[in-house]
């Protein structure tokens, strides 16, 4: 398991290749990558991501451990950036390795749903017409319900 919280850019190609390398015991690798998206209404200059140092790493580790308890996983990777990002830049990625694809997919979706609403990150959009904190979506909170046993 590898959890990384950093301001620097990272190379999703290199990370994906390194994560998948040499796995003869895992048949399935799933990755998710989040990218800063242009907003149609108002040109986005940047996305600023604030986080809670210390708690962030702790929350991500707990979410990854919970995924490993629920599914037969070989490995989990979480990389999340903070600071100022331009449109098109990679915000974060996760990867899961499992013997079977259903476990790799379910764990990846679980990680994303929890990371969205339970890891202490906050996004602010910087546009030509002003700045604004991104509001949490009801659908992201609702997405957690499907994982309740």
């Amino acid at each position, binding site marked *: 398991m590898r959890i990384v919280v950093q301001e620097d850019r990272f190379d999703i190609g290199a990370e994906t290749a390194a994560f998948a390398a040499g796995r003869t015991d895992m048949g399935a690798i799933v990755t998710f990558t989040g990218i800063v998206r242009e907003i149609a209404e108002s040109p986005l200059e940047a996305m600023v991501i604030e986080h*809670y140092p210390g*708690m962030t790493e702790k929350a991500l580790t707990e979410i990854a451990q919970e995924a490993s308890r629920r599914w037969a996983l070989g490995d989990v990777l979480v990389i999340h950036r903070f600071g100022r990002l331009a449109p098109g830049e990679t915000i974060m990625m996760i990867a899961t390795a499992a013997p079977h694809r259903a476990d790799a997919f379910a764990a990846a979706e679980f990680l994303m749903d929890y990371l969205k609403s339970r890891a202490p990150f906050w996004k602010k959009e910087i546009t030509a017409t002003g700045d604004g904190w991104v509001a*949490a979506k009801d659908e992201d909170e609702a997405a957690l319900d499907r994982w309740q046993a």
Partner: protein
Amino acid sequence: MIDVLYFAWVRERIGLPKERIETQAETVAALVEELKGREARYELAFADSDALRVALDQELSGFDAPLAGVREVAFFPPMTGG
């Protein structure tokens, strides 16, 4: 003495990221009431507690949780990671 941290728009409204507070408040809710009584900027930041989340020693918690033994309290809006 307890460390109180603020993030995102809570931090912006209060105007600082962190402060040390001497308090006798027994719960998070009591601490919030105490802070709201201090100054308008706290009143503004804590106006809608439904829009807020709290972490005690870096674990998400409820507003009715006791503060006994807690070293670090953090207030922030719902998270928007990913």
